[in-house]
């Protein structure tokens, strides 16, 4: 009897081994599983250390009132989040970030595309224009912010000459609650359109000349050739450019600080400058972490939306 049990036990263990080896063989095409076992852990480890853990920590700290010194001890549950959503400046920061995305998509990218279409062909004049348009992007954000602060200066800047010429009152645009963010948007478009233009130029130069000529023979006007041939063929460049532009909008910080520092009356904050001002400089690390978590959620929502819409056909 006991012998029979042992035999059955052996049989079942042998059959489960066989199943495992069958499963392994089935899924290990071209050493797929081996590659997975060898290459996944380092990436997973780095991702965990530099992304998952900080986000987890931020989520944890966001439940405390904590100034960053010592161990967080004052557990406040979700009150940081409640404070955040009740704070008018946060609403403004979210709305401003949305405005940057909107302006990027509606003005910056079309402008970059129009300019790219005008100067993508190879000639020395076009190279010169490309360089000129790309220069703002090379400039450090803080330097660009300082330059534009002088430009917008109502006493000594270009704005002062402008108001003088028009014989109107001095206009301190960066101190004007209604117009300061418009000024920032102008600088943002100026700073980054060259980058998107370069993406489009690279993509346009990859469009085969034959196709453009074929469209001419088919009777396409210049606009029709752009609409029906060039734009569909540079779609991968456009999707990348949209991706960078939204990501850039969510991260906007370095231009805000030298230009307005978020003022006047917190009217020009973006999500990151808001986080910095109210979380770091005021030593509310718990509160700042809550903003960070919200920003992270925004990024995740964007990433998933982007994957399931724009990148859907590219899979």
């Amino acid at each position, binding site marked *: 009897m006991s012998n029979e049990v042992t035999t059955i036990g052996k049989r079942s263990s042998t059959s489960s081994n066989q199943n495992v080896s069958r499963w392994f063989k089935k899924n290990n095409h071209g050493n797929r599983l081996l590659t997975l076992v060898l290459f996944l852990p380092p990436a997973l480890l780095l991702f965990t250390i530099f992304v998952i853990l900080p986000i987890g920590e931020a989520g944890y700290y966001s439940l405390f009132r904590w100034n960053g010194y010592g161990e967080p001890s004052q557990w406040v549950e979700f009150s940081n989040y409640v404070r955040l959503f009740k704070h008018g400046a946060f609403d403004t920061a979210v709305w401003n970030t949305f405005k940057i995305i909107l302006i990027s998509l509606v003005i910056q990218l079309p402008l970059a595309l129009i300019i790219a279409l005008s100067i993508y062909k190879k000639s020395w004049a076009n190279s010169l224009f490309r360089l000129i348009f790309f220069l703002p992007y090379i400039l450090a954000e803080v330097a660009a912010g300082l330059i534009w602060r002088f430009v917008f200066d109502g006493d000594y800047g270009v704005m002062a000459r402008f108001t003088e010429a028009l014989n109107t009152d001095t206009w301190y645009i960066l101190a004007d609650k209604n117009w300061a963010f418009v000024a920032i948007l102008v600088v943002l478009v100026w700073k980054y359109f060259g980058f998107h233009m370069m993406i489009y130029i690279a993509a346009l130069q990859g469009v085969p000349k034959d196709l453009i000529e074929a469209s*001419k*023979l088919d009777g396409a006007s210049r606009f029709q050739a752009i609409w*029906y041939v060039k734009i569909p063929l540079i779609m991968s460049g456009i999707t990348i450019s949209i991706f960078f532009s939204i990501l850039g909008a969510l991260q906007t910080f370095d231009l805000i600080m030298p230009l307005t520092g978020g003022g006047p009356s917190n009217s020009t904050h973006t999500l990151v400058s808001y986080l910095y001002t109210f979380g770091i400089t005021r030593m509310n690390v718990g509160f700042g972490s809550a903003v960070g978590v919200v920003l992270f959620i925004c990024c995740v929502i964007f990433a998933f939306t982007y994957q399931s819409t724009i990148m859907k056909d590219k899979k």
Partner: protein
Amino acid sequence: MASVEFKHIEKIYPGNVHTVKDFNLKINDGEFIVFLGPSGCGKSTTLRMLAGLEDISGGEILINNKVVNDLEPIERDIAMVFQSYALYPHMSVYQNIAFALKLAGLSKSEIEEKVRPVADMLQLTPLLDRKPRALSGGQRQRVAMGRAMVRTPEVFLFDEPLSNLDAKLRNSMRTEIKTLHKKIKKTTIYVTHDQVEAMTLADRIVILRDGKVEQVGTPREIYHSPANKFVAGFIGSPAMNFIPVELAKDEGWHVDIAGQKLNLLGDVDDNQTDTKATLGIRPCDIHITPDLLTNPLVIKGTVENLELLGSTIQLTSRLGDSQITVEAPSSHMVNEDEVTNFYIDESRLHLFSDQTGLSMYKPNAVLE
């Protein structure tokens, strides 16, 4: 119905690169013309000037006796098939064919009415929903032709359309193009560097070199009566043998080859006073023959190299200082290093002036 005329056409690129020089040609309605020449001879440039894709530096191009120099490509009523096929990769086969009609503002039903018959004719109906990347080379080629045909243009232009296909497919597509031309009878200009395509497709061939027309003629004329040494060497495979000779006259004109006197029985162009000339003879016009000592055109030579090509053999030997190639039926049992007799067919001789390169001899029996 359309005739095409090139009048003193010039093309000069920046940097004074003169690509097409004084190109003159009249193409009759429904004719199939092939521009043939080596790379860089200006054949594609000429075609592109006709299409309106290149500016014309000088001269006039007329379609149906109307100067089209300043007209946009679409206004010239021409269609072109590109070497790369130039299919729009983001459009389906149907959309590719229908694109010109869509731009012309035709309704969906009108477009459908025009696209379907063309697709049927080119056997593209089952492929209409596919994107170009899902098609084979031959199918892409047919879509490119469909796109050209659907507009029913007056003139068809083909810019090396078969050069991206493998040899077998190229042969079948060549036949298809020929059949199609017979069916639709439209004026067609076809650019190629492949002489087989030129010989098989053309009503007339235009041979170009360095932007200049070397000869215009039917395939037979071009092959049997080349106007100059370049044409003679360019057409025919294996290439024509060239032997430097001295032209002399006693009772009649004659040349000496390898110590043998070769009387020229045809007409020598007396206007060309050049006595230094090049004798041209095609490899297939030199025959391996039994020893006929009485025949003055039989010359002895050693077989230096021999290649069996199936139905024919190709061998190299020497006539005096010149190496010659001979093509003969493979039934001849000759071997390498063997001395054999070569009979030169005098009626197939060509003679070219060394000064001008022009043909200066017309044999009595000229095949045209």
